[in-house]
């Protein structure tokens, strides 16, 4: 009886290390939902006037027609922007970005890319991101900022004229918006694939440890 009590105390005294704090997990999944809504409704909008010689399959678009796609896009944008802004502010304020994503050195990236390609890149300590992860996570945050800025510029090319100027002109902002989407989709594929290969990382993003 007494030994049991001791064991309990020991367990509670050394709780499993929190890998992903609650705010990261909540914002991650809100962002995941917002991104998917934005991408699928964005494909609907793209199909109304394709930039390239292809359209997205109807089954993978949201809203049924252009008007519906626009309604979804301009509703989900609030989710994406508010959540994304909260994430950036918290990430900088708590020092998480600095601690987790920096430094990113070319030699470190090169080393870890080589290790990853030869399947020697370990994931023993999930609290420390390797250089490939750092580069991808920092990169996708930058792409996220870029896609919102180009999107806002396209939404309000007169009122937010300076945003359009940032990209040159309105049609260029449209291309930037598209290629950011493509980058996010590519990230998504790799990100999900790797999360499935290392299931404990997925678990950490759900229950925190």
């Amino acid at each position, binding site marked *: 009886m007494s030994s049991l009590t001791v064991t309990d105390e020991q367990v509670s005294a050394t709780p499993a290390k929190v890998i992903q704090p609650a705010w990261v997990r909540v914002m991650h999944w809100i962002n995941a*939902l917002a991104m*998917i809504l934005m991408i*699928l409704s964005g494909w609907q*909008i*793209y*199909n*109304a*006037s394709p*930039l390239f010689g292809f359209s997205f399959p*109807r*089954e*993978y*678009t*949201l*809203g*049924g*027609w*252009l*008007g*519906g796609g*626009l*309604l*979804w896009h*301009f*509703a989900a944008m*609030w989710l994406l922007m508010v959540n994304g802004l909260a994430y950036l502010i918290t990430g900088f304020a708590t020092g998480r970005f600095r601690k987790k994503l920096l430094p990113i050195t070319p030699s470190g990236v090169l080393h870890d890319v080589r290790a990853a390609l030869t399947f020697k890149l370990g994931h023993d300590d999930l609290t420390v991101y390797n250089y490939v992860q750092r580069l991808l996570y920092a990169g996708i945050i930058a792409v996220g900022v870029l896609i919102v800025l180009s999107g806002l510029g396209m*939404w*309000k*090319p*007169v*009122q937010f*004229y300076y945003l359009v100027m940032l990209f040159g002109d*309105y*049609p260029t902002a*449209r291309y930037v918006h598209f290629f950011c989407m493509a980058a996010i989709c590519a990230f998504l594929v790799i990100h999900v694939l790797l999360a499935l290969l290392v299931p404990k990382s997925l678990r950490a993003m759900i229950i925190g440890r």
Partner: protein
Amino acid sequence: MAKRSFLIPGVDKRLLIKDAIKTMPDFTRRRFIAGGASLGALTLLTGCDVVDSSSADTLLAQVSKFNDAVQAFIFNPDALAPTFPESAITKPFPFNAYYDLDDAPDIAAADWKLEVRGLVDNKKSWTLDELYKLPQVNQITRHICVEGWSAIGSWTGTPLRDFLKLIGADTRAKYVWFQCADKDGYNSPLDMRSALHPQTQMTFKYANEILPRAYGFPMKIRVPTKLGFKNPKYVVSMEVTNEYKGGYWEDQGYNSFSGS
């Protein structure tokens, strides 16, 4: 939705089109959101039953109204749409409508009159010759379509705010509502602040030539701070009103403010 215009007395335009849609082939542009949010994947993602999409539609419509308010708040009446040199003009400037050019209104100048209604002092109708006598200005601006494409064009005409002043319009009213000659009765409301924007224009010329049929002869309303569908062509009447009377695309789900 409180008060609507009826093309056929007693027949709701939206319901009529909705019924007609059922008999039409799969033509994406004319689809309604009601039949819209058809994505099976969304059901999987959210675990919600979006097959009954009416609740999703209601929410989206509410967010769209919220977006109207946000855009009205952002709107700066002094912010001018960028202008371009003549060399930047898109040639040929695209014809765009929900019908083919052959079905575009073919209006005889002599038969046409611009009707003025609503909260104005002088409700007299205007002939084209009378309108042509008003002072005109030129603008080379970018037309941005709701579909995403854009084109730069040269428009010449009378600033709408000058005309509204001339006819003694109550500029405290909320909207100027335009009715057009397009088939199915195109119409569109323009919020008063956008109507009074210095670049909003009653357009009579394209590229310094009398407005061709393709671009809305005899008169189009050029609003460079709005998406293309809020730049009505073949205009036959304008009404200054406090009532939101809806519009051809607005009623189908395009965001009503749709300002740029």
